């Protein structure tokens, strides 16, 4: 992977922002999608009712996960699907490997799975001699560039078409300089079609798993999940425990919300239902915990498990749009990623809840009404309490607390500040002050408001 794991969000964002033209274009592309979402959602008068219903259903699911999981498992088994339970990424990867190995499969096609990105399944299987191809076009582009996806719905949104042309020239032998999106897509389609025809093993993610029937639904625009699954001898689905919905009729709410929130489409081109293996085919479903039950136990953060991975919080986030998804150094980026990641590794992701202005736009667009910005704020408190906050932040907090703790402290700090700004401004205006890098400090008023007020009150 190209990405440096040791750098924090702020420095990765700084590197991305250096190419200002790219940032403007990235920002505009995501804002365009946000606007499409607005148009699509406003065409349905019952939009807010749908959000409320989806939120309530998901709350019910995460509160009764135990029962729904057992019901789902029983129905899957009845339908002829083999069910596996994985506590963590390692267990998940080992299960996939053992299924493929039993069938002597050395090549697998994958689609629509952020979970397997999270588990780093590709790397695991490649080390064991199994080749994996991501068949979603965006994911495929990211895979050949050896970079993780930067967005859960639009994996290569940070790349220019010319860069993709260059990658295709290198990996698929296209003409140098070819950057027409339609032409490039045709080349990829031809290449992937051959992949679908020759792979005996296929793995997909899961958008919605219906406890009542034991079926699962995968939503795509490219039809690639179907191509892979239908042509395979062994079909594997990997899903996080939280992907359940109680009944089939609830799909009528979620399918309407998902695509409108994600891209502004009324519905994804394909909503594929998988229920039982065809004769001669094997079907496996892996239920993965990987930190989800831990998050369920965190009262302040359990609501994050309601997420249906539409990506609308990313498209609307002013920080995400300007910093790019890779700056979040986590599989799930953006605001939702910033509340999911600290649960996985609080120390490594301590910077992410701070990569937000807490403007609240994410919570406003969330189709399942997760209070994302509220949770970002709460994670900050958790991180400080656990001692993972950066020193500068802790020091600043103490200084702030001292200044505001008494009127005397406040007045003397103000006087000191004004005196410094007027007499020796270089103490503040220097390269050690991050404010001063691209912004000037204010000149500072001659007197404080309190002094001004006292003087003017006397006049009257």
């Amino acid at each position, binding site marked *: 992977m190209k990405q440096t794991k040791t750098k924090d969000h*702020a420095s990765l*964002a700084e590197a991305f922002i250096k190419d200002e033209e790219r940032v403007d274009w990235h920002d505009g592309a995501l804002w365009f999608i946000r606007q499409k979402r607005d148009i699509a959602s406003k065409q349905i008068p019952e939009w807010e009712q749908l959000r409320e219903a989806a939120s309530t259903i998901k709350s019910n699911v995460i509160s009764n996960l135990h029962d729904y999981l057992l019901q789902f498992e029983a129905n899957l088994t009845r339908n002829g699907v083999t069910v596996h339970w994985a506590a963590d990424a390692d267990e998940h990867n080992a299960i996939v490997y053992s299924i493929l190995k039993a069938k002597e499969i050395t090549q697998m096609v994958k689609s629509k799975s952020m979970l397997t990105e999270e588990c780093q399944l590709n790397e695991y299987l490649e080390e064991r001699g199994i080749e994996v191809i991501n068949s979603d076009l965006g994911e495929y582009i990211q895979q050949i560039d050896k970079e993780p996806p930067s967005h859960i719905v639009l994996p290569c949104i940070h790349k220019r078409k010319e860069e993709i042309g260059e990658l295709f020239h290198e990996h698929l032998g296209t003409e140098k300089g070819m950057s027409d999106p339609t032409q490039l897509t045709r080349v990829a389609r031809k290449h992937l079609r051959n992949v679908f025809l020759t792979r005996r093993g296929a793995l997909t993610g899961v958008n919605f798993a219906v406890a009542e029937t034991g079926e699962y639904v995968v939503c795509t625009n490219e039809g690639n999940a179907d191509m892979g699954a239908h042509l395979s001898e062994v079909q594997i689905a990997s899903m996080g425990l939280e992907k359940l919905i109680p009944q089939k009729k609830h799909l009528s709410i979620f399918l309407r919300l998902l695509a409108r929130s994600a891209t502004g489409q009324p519905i994804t081109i394909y909503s594929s239902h998988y229920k039982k293996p065809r004769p001669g085919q094997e079907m496996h479903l892996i239920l993965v915990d990987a930190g989800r039950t831990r998050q369920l136990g965190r009262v302040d953060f359990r609501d994050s498990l309601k997420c249906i991975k539409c990506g609308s919080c990313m498209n609307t986030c002013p*920080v995400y749009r300007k910093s790019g998804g890779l700056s979040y150094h986590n599989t799930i980026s953006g605001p939702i990623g910033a509340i999911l990641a600290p649960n996985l590794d609080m120390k490594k992701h301590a910077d992410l809840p701070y990569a937000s202005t807490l403007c609240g736009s994410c919570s406003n667009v969330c189709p399942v009404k997760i209070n994302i910005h509220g949770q970002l704020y709460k994670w900050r408190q958790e991180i400080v309490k656990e001692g993972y906050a950066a020193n*500068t932040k802790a020091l*600043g907090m103490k*200084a702030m607390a001292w200044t505001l703790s008494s009127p005397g402290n406040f007045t003397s700090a103000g006087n000191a500040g004004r005196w410094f700004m007027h007499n020796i401004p270089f103490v503040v205006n220097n390269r050690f002050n991050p404010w001063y890098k691209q912004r000037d400090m204010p000149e500072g008023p001659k007197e404080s408001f309190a002094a001004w007020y006292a003087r003017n009150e006397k006049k009257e």
Partner: protein
Amino acid sequence: MLWIWRNFCVAEEAVSVKMGKDRVTDHTKHGAEYITSSDLSCLMHLEGILHRNKSAVKIMHIAEILNAEL
């Protein structure tokens, strides 16, 4: 002055400045001569960017407008 050290504007300097620059551009593109707000930290941020770029656009707190003599 101390409060800024812990804030987004400094911790996420690059993103913060880019957001401020874009906001200023939005205003200047529409011919604004003054920018006003009731939020001091916002004004300080935009003024810092305008001043560094030698812009003629002025920043005024809403109280300065209300207190101005006609």
